[in-house]
């Protein structure tokens, strides 16, 4: 599928990129057709917008396949990266069309924001009344998450590890990314297996939610949003609408699973759970969630937020939801005590494991960062000692650790820059900062006026464009977008 090794000096072939991007359009067209059928069966007003978008996606998708010969050769790493990045941007554009053609609350800016939020699996919404949307459009909204999740799997597991170690070394700041070890020669079959895990998890969650008494439509759309760690729910009150502990437990379990490294998850499902259980990143990820839930529960209980059980129920769901970058809600966390909000803000930055559908800085980089800090402290005590950073028993190069820290700095810098721009267009400080962090981490809800029970409708248009861009930057791990949009890197 991808040609290994360095591609420095290789010329990009735009026609080949167009051909592969066309397949993405056809994938979108397939789902648009399903959404149109749902819309047609319900005789709702989204039928024509969905069908017309399906037609455009099909026509645009078929044409390059007709023109560019199939045996045009294997694709290089940079072309692979360009295909994924452009597919994402084009999918966001196509995803905008059903919304903008349908109208209602969707101006062009709103439709673009909703679409980008869907494909990047962010889950921030501009919709005030989600339930007013026709079923076909609600289904499409959830599908954007699910397709985006597929894109993440391919991006994180097939493209990132294959990139040139010189030009793209920062991607290897995924650290001990097992995708490098297990999938060093990733092929079509490997991606198929991982996609089966993705589809399998979706199916199992759908069935589990059906058993909890949820309707079929809600079960499917909520599963799409959970496995992709998106957060778009077909209900105004998100998961709180169902008021069911069983539903919340099922969603929490699948949010945690979706936040784990998919390669390790695949190995565990294949009967080899050792790697998953022994992974220091996974251990850190689960431990962080556990501590987060405990601290939030204590904070809520201390502030008189109902009984211990109630405090635990709400804090567990919210911490896991934010900590996996899903963004579902069972309560309005913007009215929580400041300490609990800070815990949520920490998870908004960190999120879950690399090589999952989750966003944010990622637990892997946090582990690297913490180990770097620990080493620095040890070196201060004993300046002559050579102390390597070890991860899962293997030494990590100093360069890798430094790049991990650099990534975190850049990440936080972008969040501050985006928040600054938002305040410049009139958004209040807390909403701007938390909104930027939530979109950069593809989490969804922030704090203040963009909290878990709120929406982004009131953000000025310019702010919505800033946040959309932040979502894309976060999803493409900063460098992905930079490499594709700066011509210098293409040469």
């Amino acid at each position, binding site marked *: 599928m991808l040609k290994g090794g360095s591609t420095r000096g290789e010329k990009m072939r735009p026609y080949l990129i167009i051909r592969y991007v066309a397949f993405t359009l056809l994938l979108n067209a397939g789902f648009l057709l399903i959404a149109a059928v749902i819309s047609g069966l319900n005789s709702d007003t989204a039928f024509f917008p969905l069908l*017309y978008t399906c037609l*455009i996606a099909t*026509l645009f998708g078929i044409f390059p396949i007709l*023109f560019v010969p199939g045996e045009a050769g294997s694709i290089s790493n940079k072309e692979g990266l360009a295909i994924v990045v452009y597919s994402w941007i084009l999918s966001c554009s196509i995803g905008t069309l059903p919304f*903008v053609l349908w109208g209602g609350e969707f101006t062009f800016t709103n439709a673009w924001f909703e679409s980008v939020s869907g494909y990047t699996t962010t889950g921030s919404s501009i919709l005030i009344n989600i339930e007013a949307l026709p079923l076909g459009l609600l289904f499409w909204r959830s599908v954007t998450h699910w397709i985006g999740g597929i894109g993440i799997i391919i991006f994180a597991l097939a493209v990132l590890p294959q990139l040139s170690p010189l030009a793209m070394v920062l991607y290897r700041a995924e650290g001990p990314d097992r995708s490098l070890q297990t999938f060093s020669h990733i092929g079509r079959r490997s991606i198929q297996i991982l996609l089966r895990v993705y589809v399998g998890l979706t199916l199992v969650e759908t069935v589990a939610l059906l058993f909890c008494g949820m309707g079929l439509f809600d079960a499917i759309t909520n599963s799409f949003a959970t496995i992709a760690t998106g957060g778009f729910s077909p209900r105004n009150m998100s998961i709180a609408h169902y008021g069911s502990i069983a539903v919340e437990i099922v969603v929490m379990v699948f949010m945690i699973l979706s936040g784990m490294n998919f390669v390790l998850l695949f190995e565990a499902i294949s009967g080899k759970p050792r790697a998953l259980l022994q992974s220091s990143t996974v251990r850190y990820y689960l431990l962080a969630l556990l501590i987060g839930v405990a601290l939030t529960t204590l904070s809520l209980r201390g502030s008189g937020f109902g009984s211990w059980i109630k405090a635990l129920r709400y804090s567990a769901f919210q911490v896991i939801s934010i900590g996996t970058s899903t963004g579902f809600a069972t309560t309005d966390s913007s009215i929580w005590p400041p300490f609990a909000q800070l815990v949520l803000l920490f998870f908004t930055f960190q999120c879950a494991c690399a090589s999952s559908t989750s966003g944010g800085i990622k637990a892997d980089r946090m582990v690297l960062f913490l180990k770097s800090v620990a080493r620095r402290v040890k070196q201060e005590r004993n300046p002559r000692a050579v102390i390597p950073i070890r991860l899962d028993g293997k030494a990590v190069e100093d360069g890798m650790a430094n790049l991990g820290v650099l990534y975190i700095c850049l990440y936080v810098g972008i969040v501050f820059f985006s928040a600054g721009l938002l305040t410049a267009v009139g958004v209040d400080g807390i909403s701007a900062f938390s909104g930027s962090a939530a979109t950069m981490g593809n989490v969804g809800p922030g704090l203040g006026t963009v909290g878990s029970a709120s929406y982004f409708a009131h953000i000025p248009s310019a702010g919505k464009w800033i946040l959309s861009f932040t979502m894309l930057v976060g999803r493409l791990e900063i460098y992905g977008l930079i490499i594709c949009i700066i011509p210098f890197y293409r040469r």
Partner: protein
Amino acid sequence: MSLRFKIMSGFLILALMLAIAGIWSIYELSSIGTSVQDLLDENYRSIKAAEMMVEALERQDSGILLLLLGKWDEGQKIVNSGDDLFQENYKMAKNNITVPGEGDFIEKINQKYMIYKKSWGKPIVGTDKQGNLDWYFRNLHVEFLNVKSAVNELKELNEKTLYRTASDLKNRANRAVMPGTVAVIAALIFSLIFTYFVNLYMVNPIRRMISGIEDFIKKDKDFVVSFETNDEISHLSSAIQSLCSRVAPPVGKR
């Protein structure tokens, strides 16, 4: 795939995009026309009827006040004309039930009006009721306000529906415009991609063949131009290659 098919498919796709956008726009526009008609037929007529019922009630109330003053002829005339006007518009509203729950509002008006009519139907002039304003305010005026309020509720219901339909019309107008806009933008983007492919797979190969032929003639080089595609261009290239090898054998075999 043949060149003809590729070019044809390009134009067909363009035509399809524009045609479907056109059909959809026409459909939406005709829907808007129907909605405007429905708006006038359904809601506006009911609103007008409600307004006329209120007018009729006001007239009846004036007539009743004249009766209280002992002016039998003028009062009775005004009350009767008000009653006729009310009945006429009540029938109109009853025959134009279009909004869910509107029937209940009509029935409520009927019940309230019957009570009101019963009160002024009995003689006033020449009885102890004449000039008795206390009796008027305790009985007739309360019933008058009850009917008026019921009629206003009907009017409000239709006004809300009218606003909703008008908002929906705005959406529909947007839907009628958007396919055209999207089709034009899509057609422009498609034209660019089409031009790029025509250049890449038709113009460039022809240039390469021209250059190959010129090299063959002027520099006595072999004509070696190959293509990945399996269309008329690659067939033409093969034909030129075999023609050249007939005219002059390949350099290695000379």
